[in-house]
């Protein structure tokens, strides 16, 4: 009973926040709504006996990724979106896609409801830190290593993407490149553009 009430409470909160995320034009409001979704999902994870995942969800999503997003919104000082001018057929496409996915969702719901009732396996140790750690560093060691390499690549990529070359350095790079191509005409054009 209690877990049912909790589930519907948090599920309703998550759906409301998700709708508000799509509805709001202001990116900061969208970000706040998304944080609401993350917190609601984290509470649902607690009711699913996965405390480690719940804590990590708050720590990584709400505490790190969304802080970065909010930081970028504040740094770029973004205003509201401009009114919609995009091609109309895209909206029809979006609505159609949404409809199909929704129908699919209800089909899954129906199918799982009709399937023989699966009894909950009340093994509470599955969500504990110890079992996750043991599985992570024995059976699933290779994926963990791959994710580590991926994160390293992301760090390097992020640094390179936002690095701004000094003007002198930038000119040096462009000169070198243009000398290599040996195209005097274009070179002058580029210098004027700079």
């Amino acid at each position, binding site marked *: 009973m209690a877990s049912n009430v909790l589930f519907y409470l948090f599920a309703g909160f998550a759906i409301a926040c998700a709708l508000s*995320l799509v509805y709001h034009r202001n990116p900061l409001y969208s970000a706040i709504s998304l944080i609401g979704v993350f917190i609601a999902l984290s509470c649902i994870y607690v009711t699913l006996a996965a405390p480690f995942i719940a804590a990590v969800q708050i720590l990584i999503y709400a505490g790190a990724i969304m802080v970065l997003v909010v930081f970028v919104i504040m740094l*770029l000082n973004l205003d509201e*979106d401009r009114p919609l001018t995009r091609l109309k057929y895209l909206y029809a496409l979006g609505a159609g896609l949404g409809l199909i996915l929704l129908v699919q969702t209800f089909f899954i719901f129906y199918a799982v409801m009709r399937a023989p009732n699966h009894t909950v*396996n009340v093994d509470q140790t599955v969500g504990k830190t110890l079992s996750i750690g043991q599985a992570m560093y024995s059976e699933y060691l290779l994926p963990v290593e791959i994710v580590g390499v991926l994160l390293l690549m992301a760090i390097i990529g992020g640094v390179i993407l936002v690095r701004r070359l000094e003007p002198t350095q930038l000119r040096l790079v462009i000169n070198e490149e243009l000398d290599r191509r040996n195209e005097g005409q274009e070179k002058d054009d580029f210098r004027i553009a700079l």
Partner: protein
Amino acid sequence: MEPSLANYLALSGILFTIGATGVVFKRNALGMFMCIELMLNAVNLTFVAFSRYYADVTGQLFVFMVMSVAAAEAAVGLGIIIAFYRNSVSIDVDDASLLKN
């Protein structure tokens, strides 16, 4: 009485649908990024629900992997958004049409 597996799957499906439509409707790169995060979270919910109902730790490990990928995606994606903003003073994806003509 506990909510059944179908309830969790339905919630996850609804969230995924909202995220997927949001990606199409949003024209702002940050908004699209956030909708993608929403979709990833919807998938995470199914993983945790299955992990609970089959008492298998694999689902939770996959959630962990998805989170790491989302973090990497955030770092690179926000880097691209900032670099794009420096060039065109906008993060509207419709303005990213330099290769068009």
